[in-house]
C-alpha cells in the first residue's frame, strides 16, 4: 500500500533547482539568441504634469537603437487606455493609464516612451536622449491631500473620489447610540509593497511563418495576460501562447495585467520580427509597479459591560494611487474582512477610494486584510483597556461560536457573493495561542524584566481570511504508457511549491508514486482555461480540480483494468502505479492500462504491441466505444459556491528599549487553521515568510513620498526590507484543522495568513509595553521616541491594556 502523502511533510522537490541557481526566470530566456533585443522605458520624473511635446529625434541616431514608441505611434486598441480589470457599480470614476502616457502623467514612474535596442545599456542611453516638455501641475500626495481635494488628480474626477461604497447589516448607528459604552478611534496605515525578489519581466517572440506569438511573462495569471495581449494586438486568441516560467515571487503585484511592458514587448516583437525582452530593474519596480496598504480609518463602537460589541461603524479612506486597474478589490476586502472572527450585532462600513499622484495600489499579500485586522483588533484592545478587562476575554465574548457555522454576516464579499464563513473554531484557537505564547504567565515575566529595568509588552491579533475565491480552476491528468503521470493546471507558480503539494494529491488520489507525477502550471498551451494564483486560492482551486481530474483518470483506469484482469472494479486497488485484484497476485501496471486505453494500428515499441489491432478488442465493436475516448486521461474543473474562510491568531512579545526606543521581538507565536493541511512544511514555510514580511510592514517598510510626489526611498538601501537579522529567530506554530465543507479535500488557503495580523499584533504589544495608544503603523524607533515625548506628562499605568 502506498503511504498517504496528503498531510505529510514532504520536502519541496523544487528547492534543489532553486537553491542551486537552476531556476529559469524570464530574464534567463532566449539569452543565446543573437537576434534578441532589449527594451527600456522612459518614465515620468514628475508626479503630475501635462506632456506638451516629446522629442525623440536624437534617439535613432544612437548606434544599436532599433525602434522607439510613444503614444503617437500606437494604433487601434493599443492606443486605448489599459483595461479596468474588475469593474464595480460603485466605481463611478474608474480610470486606467495608457500603455504610454498620452497627454498627462499622474505619477513619477509612469511610462512615456519605449525604446528597443541591441542591449539594455544602449536602450537606457537612448532613453536619456528623449526630451520631453512638461507643463507642471500640482500633485496630490497622501490621503489628507486627496481628501482635502484642493486640487484633483484627474480633471474629470471631482474631489478625487473614484468610488464611495457603503454596506450595513442591522442599524449600527442606532445600536451605538443606545449602547452603555462607546469609543472612537482614528487609525492610520501607511504604504508598503510586495517587492518580490524578481521584478516584472516579459519576453516575446513572433513567428512570421505561422503568425504565432509566444509570450513569456513573470505573471500570476498567464491566461489573463494572453487574453489582454490578443485583444490589444488584435490577434486570434489561438495565435497567442503565454508561458510562465519560474517566477521569483509575486505577492500580488504580478496579478495586475497587462502591464504596459507586457503589451509593448509583444507589439515590438511582432513589429520588428525579432524577439524582445524587458526586465524591470529595482528602481522601476518601486516607482512603476504597484503599492498597497495606505488607509485612514474612523471607528465608532458601542459595547456593553462585558465588552460585547453592539454596534460598529467604520468609515475609511483608501489611497488607490493614480489609476484603478484592479477596481475596488482591496477596500472591499478591508471593509468585509475587518470583522475577523467576531460578530458585531450591527455593522456599518463606508469607504471612499481616492486618487493620488502616486503609484497604483493593487493587492499585496493580505490585500486589504492587514488594515482591517489592525482596525478591528485595535478596537478590541481599546474596549479591553476601557473596561479594564483581559484582552483575550473581550475577544472571546465577541467570537462566532463553533456551532454557529455557516455564519452569515449579511454582507457581500470581494467575489460578489455572500460573506458566509464556512467553518472554524475560534475559542479552541485562542486557547492554543494563550498556551503557546504563555499569555497567563506574562505578568510574572513583565515583573521579572521590570526588575532588570527592561520594558516588555505582549499583544495578540486574530483574523479570518476568505481564501480560494472563484470563479474556477481546472486540471488535466494524463497517465502515460510509461506509467508516468503528467498533470497540467492553468494557474501559475511563484515559488509556493505547487509541484510538491499537487503531486502529493495526485499520488494519493491515483495510487501512483510521488516521483512519477509532473505538474505543469501557467502554460496556456497545456491548459487554456484558468484564472490565476492570488488570494490564497491555488491549493483550494487547483488542488481540488487536480483531485477531481485524477479521480476521473482513476475511474477509467479501473474500468480498463477490470476488463483486462477479468475482475470486478470493486475488487481492484491501485498502489505504486500497479492495479491489482485485492488478495490475489493478479495485477497490471497503470502504464499497461494506458497502452490498452489507446487502440493502435501501429506499434512503436514492445509495450505498444499489446494495443495493436490484432492483439486487443472485440472485433464486433468499435475499438473506441461511443461514450469513450482514447487515452488514459481525466479532466475536470472545480468552481466553488463561494470562498472558504481560514483563520488564525498571532501573539508577540516585544521589548522596547527605554533609552533608544528600539523594538526587539522576544517571542512570536502563531495558531493557524487552514483546514486539512496538504503539506505542513509548506504551510509553515508560508507562515514564516508571511511573518517576516509582516515584520517588515509593521516595523521597517514604508513608501516615503515627499510633497512633490517623489519616492525618496526607491531602493533597497532606504526601503528597509528586513534582513534575516530582523525577523524572529524562531516562530512557534500550532495548527488546528477545521475542514472546509466546500471542497472535496476540506482545505482552505494559507498563502497570505502570515502577514495579515502583523500591524495589529505589533501595535498591541508596543502599546502594552509603553502604556499609550498606538494608532498608526508602521512604527520606527524614531517615531516611538517622538510618541514617548508626546505622552511624557501622562501618568504611566502599570499594565495598560491587559487590565488588572
Amino acid at each position: 500500500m502506498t503511504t498517504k502523502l496528503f498531510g505529510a511533510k514532504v520536502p519541496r522537490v523544487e528547492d534543489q533547482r532553486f537553491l542551486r541557481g537552476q531556476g529559469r526566470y524570464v530574464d534567463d530566456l532566449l539569452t543565446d539568441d543573437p537576434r534578441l533585443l532589449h527594451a527600456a522605458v522612459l518614465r515620468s520624473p514628475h508626479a503630475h504634469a501635462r506632456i506638451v511635446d516629446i522629442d525623440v529625434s536624437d534617439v535613432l541616431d544612437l548606434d544599436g537603437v532599433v525602434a522607439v514608441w510613444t503614444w503617437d505611434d500606437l494604433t487601434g486598441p493599443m492606443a486605448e487606455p489599459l483595461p479596468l480589470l474588475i469593474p464595480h457599480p460603485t466605481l463611478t470614476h474608474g480610470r486606467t493609464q495608457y500603455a504610454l502616457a498620452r497627454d498627462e502623467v499622474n505619477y513619477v514612474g509612469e511610462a512615456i516612451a519605449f525604446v528597443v535596442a541591441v542591449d539594455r545599456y544602449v536602450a537606457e542611453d537612448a532613453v536619456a536622449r528623449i526630451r520631453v516638455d512638461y507643463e507642471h501641475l500640482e500633485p496630490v500626495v497622501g490621503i489628507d491631500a486627496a481628501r482635502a481635494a484642493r486640487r484633483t488628480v484627474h480633471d474629470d474626477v471631482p474631489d478625487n473620489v473614484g468610488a464611495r461604497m457603503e454596506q450595513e447589516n442591522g442599524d449600527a448607528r442606532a445600536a451605538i447610540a443606545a449602547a452603555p459604552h462607546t469609543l472612537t478611534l482614528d487609525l492610520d496605515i501607511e504604504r508598503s509593497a510586495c517587492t518580490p525578489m524578481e521584478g516584472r519581466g516579459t519576453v516575446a517572440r513572433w513567428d512570421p511563418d505561422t503568425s504565432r506569438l509566444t509570450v513569456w511573462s513573470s505573471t500570476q495569471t498567464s491566461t489573463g495576460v494572453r487574453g489582454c495581449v490578443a485583444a490589444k494586438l488584435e490577434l486570434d486568441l489561438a495565435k497567442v501562447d503565454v508561458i510562465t516560467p519560474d517566477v521569483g515571487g509575486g505577492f500580488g503585484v504580478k496579478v495586475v495585467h497587462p502591464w504596459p511592458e507586457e503589451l509593448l514587448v509583444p507589439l515590438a516583437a511582432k513589429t520588428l520580427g525579432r524577439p524582445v525582452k524587458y526586465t524591470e530593474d529595482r528602481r522601476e519596480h518601486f516607482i512603476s509597479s504597484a503599492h498597497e496598504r495606505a488607509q485612514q480609518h474612523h471607528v465608532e463602537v458601542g459595547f456593553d459591560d462585558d465588552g460585547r460589541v453592539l454596534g460598529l461603524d467604520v468609515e475609511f479612506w483608501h489611497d488607490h494611487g493614480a489609476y484603478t486597474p484592479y477596481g475596488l478589490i482591496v477596500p472591499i476586502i478591508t471593509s468585509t474582512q475587518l470583522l475577523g472572527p467576531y460578530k458585531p450585532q450591527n455593522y456599518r462600513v463606508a469607504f471612499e477610494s481616492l486618487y493620488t499622484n502616486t503609484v497604483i495600489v493593487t493587492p499585496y499579500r493580505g490585500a486589504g486584510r492587514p488594515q482591517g485586522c489592525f482596525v478591528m483588533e485595535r478596537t478590541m484592545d481599546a474596549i479591553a483597556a476601557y473596561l479594564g478587562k483581559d484582552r483575550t476575554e473581550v475577544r472571546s465574548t465577541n467570537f462566532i461560536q463553533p456551532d454557529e457555522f455557516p455564519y452569515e454576516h449579511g454582507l457581500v464579499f470581494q467575489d460578489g457573493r455572500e460573506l458566509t464563513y464556512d467553518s472554524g473554531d475560534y475559542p479552541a484557537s485562542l486557547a492554543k495561542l494563550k498556551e503557546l505564547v504563555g499569555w497567563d504567565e506574562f505578568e510574572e515575566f513583565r515583573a521579572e524584566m521590570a526588575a532588570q529595568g527592561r520594558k516588555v509588552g505582549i499583544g495578540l491579533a486574530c483574523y479570518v481570511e476568505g481564501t480560494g475565491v472563484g470563479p474556477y480552476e481546472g486540471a488535466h491528468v494524463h497517465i502515460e504508457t510509461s506509467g508516468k503521470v503528467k498533470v497540467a493546471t492553468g494557474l501559475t507558480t511563484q515559488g509556493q511549491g505547487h509541484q510538491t503539494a499537487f503531486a502529493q494529491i495526485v499520488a494519493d488520489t491515483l495510487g501512483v508514486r510521488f516521483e512519477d507525477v509532473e505538474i505543469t502550471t501557467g502554460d496556456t498551451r497545456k491548459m487554456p482555461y484558468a484564472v490565476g494564483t492570488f488570494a490564497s486560492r491555488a491549493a483550494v482551486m487547483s488542488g481540488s480540480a487536480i483531485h477531481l481530474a485524477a479521480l476521473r483518470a482513476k475511474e477509467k483506469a479501473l474500468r480498463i483494468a477490470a476488463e483486462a484482469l477479468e475482475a470486478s472494479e470493486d475488487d481492484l486497488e491501485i498502489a505504486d502505479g500497479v492495479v491489482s485484484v485485492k488478495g490475489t497476485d493478479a495485477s497490471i501496471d497503470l502504464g499497461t492500462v494506458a497502452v490498452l486505453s489507446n487502440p493502435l494500428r501501429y506499434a512503436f515499441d514492445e509495450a505498444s504491441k499489446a494495443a495493436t489491432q490484432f492483439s486487443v478488442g472485440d472485433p464486433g465493436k468499435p475499438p473506441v466505444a461511443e461514450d469513450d475516448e482514447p487515452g488514459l486521461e481525466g479532466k475536470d474543473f472545480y468552481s466553488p459556491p463561494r470562498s472558504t474562510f481560514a483563520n488564525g491568531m498571532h501573539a508577540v512579545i516585544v521589548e522596547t528599549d527605554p533609552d533608544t526606543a528600539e523594538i526587539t521581538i522576544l517571542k512570536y507565536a502563531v495558531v493557524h487553521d487552514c483546514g486539512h493541511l496538504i503539506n505542513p512544511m509548506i504551510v509553515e514555510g508560508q507562515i514564516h515568510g508571511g511573518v517576516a514580511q509582516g515584520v517588515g510592514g509593521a516595523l521597517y517598510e514604508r513608501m516615503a513620498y515627499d510633497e512633490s510626489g517623489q519616492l525618496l526611498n526607491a531602493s533597497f538601501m532606504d526601503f528597509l526590507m528586513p534582513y534575516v537579522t530582523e525577523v524572529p529567530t524562531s516562530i512557534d506554530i500550532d495548527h488546528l484543522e477545521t475542514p472546509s465543507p466546500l471542497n472535496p479535500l476540506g482545505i482552505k488557503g494559507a498563502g497570505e495568513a502570515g502577514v495579515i495580523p502583523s500591524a495589529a499584533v505589533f501595535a498591541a504589544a508596543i502599546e502594552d509595553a509603553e502604556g499609550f495608544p498606538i494608532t498608526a503603523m508602521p512604527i520606527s524607533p524614531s517615531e516611538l521616541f517622538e510618541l514617548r515625548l508626546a505622552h511624557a506628562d501622562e501618568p504611566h499605568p502599570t499594565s495598560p491594556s491587559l487590565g488588572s
Partner: protein
Amino acid sequence: MKPAPFAYLRPATLEEALAALAGQQGAKVLAGGQSLVPLLSMRLAAPSTLVDINALPDLSHVAVSDDGVRIGALARHAEVLASREAAERQPLLAMALSHVAHATIRNRGTTVGSLVHADAAAEMPMVLRLLEGSVDVASVRGRRTIPAAELFAGPLESTLAQDEIAVEACFPALAPGAGVAFQEIARRHGDYALVGVAAHVETDGGEVTRARVGFVSVSDVPVVVDVTDSLDDPASAALAELEPADDIHATAAYRAHLVKVLTPRVLADAVHHARDRKKS
C-alpha cells in the same frame, strides 16, 4: 540601472594608473566597487574612464608595527577585520569594522576606499579622524600625506585631487593607558548608522587626562569633539558641535537623543577598556 558608457583600464603598475588618471579629467578610481558601482548603475556618476586598481601590486597589506596599522588600498574590510595583530595594536578598527555593512560587502569593499568615499554615515572615516591617522596619496606630481583632520571636505567629498590615488591609510596604535569604544544604532543589522559614536580616552593612574568622541551620521563630515573638560555632560558639549538632521529614517530630535544616550555609554566603555588593558 545600467551605467552610461565608460572606458575601462586595468593597469598593472601604480605609475600607469597615475598616468591614466592624470590624462583623463573624467577618470575615476575603481577599488572594491561597493559604493561606486551602485552610483554608476543609477547613473548618479558617469566617469569617462574607470581606472581599476585591483591589479596593482603591493597594496593589499594590513601591516602592523609599533606605530600602528598601515592598510593598503586593496586591503578589504574583511581582511582588516580578520587581522588579530591589527585588533591588538588598534582595537577600535575591529570594533568599528564589525558595523560596516555585511560580510559579503566587507569581502570586496576596501577600507581605504571607504575613507576616500568620505561618507559621513560611514564608520571608518570617523575612526581615522578620532585616532588622528592619515592617508598617503600618490599622483604623477608626487606623494603627500593627508592628515585625517584635512581629509574630509564635505558630504561624499574628500580632499584628494582627481588624479590622486590613496595608496595607504595609517591608523596609529593605541597608546598605553588609552582606551577606545564604539557603539551605533542602525535601523537594520549592517545598515549605515542612524547615529554611531566612538570614544578615545587617555588615562593616567585611573584619571582621564584626555577624552575625545567621534560621531557618525550627525553632521556632513565626520566630527570629533574633545570632551576632556566636559566629562560631567559630554553629550551636551558634543551636541553643540553637531548638526543632527531629519531624514526618512529618523528625526533630528531622535538623533540628538541617541547622541545623549550613546555618548556617556561609549565614554564609560572606553574608560573600562583603558582599565582592562592595564590589567592584562
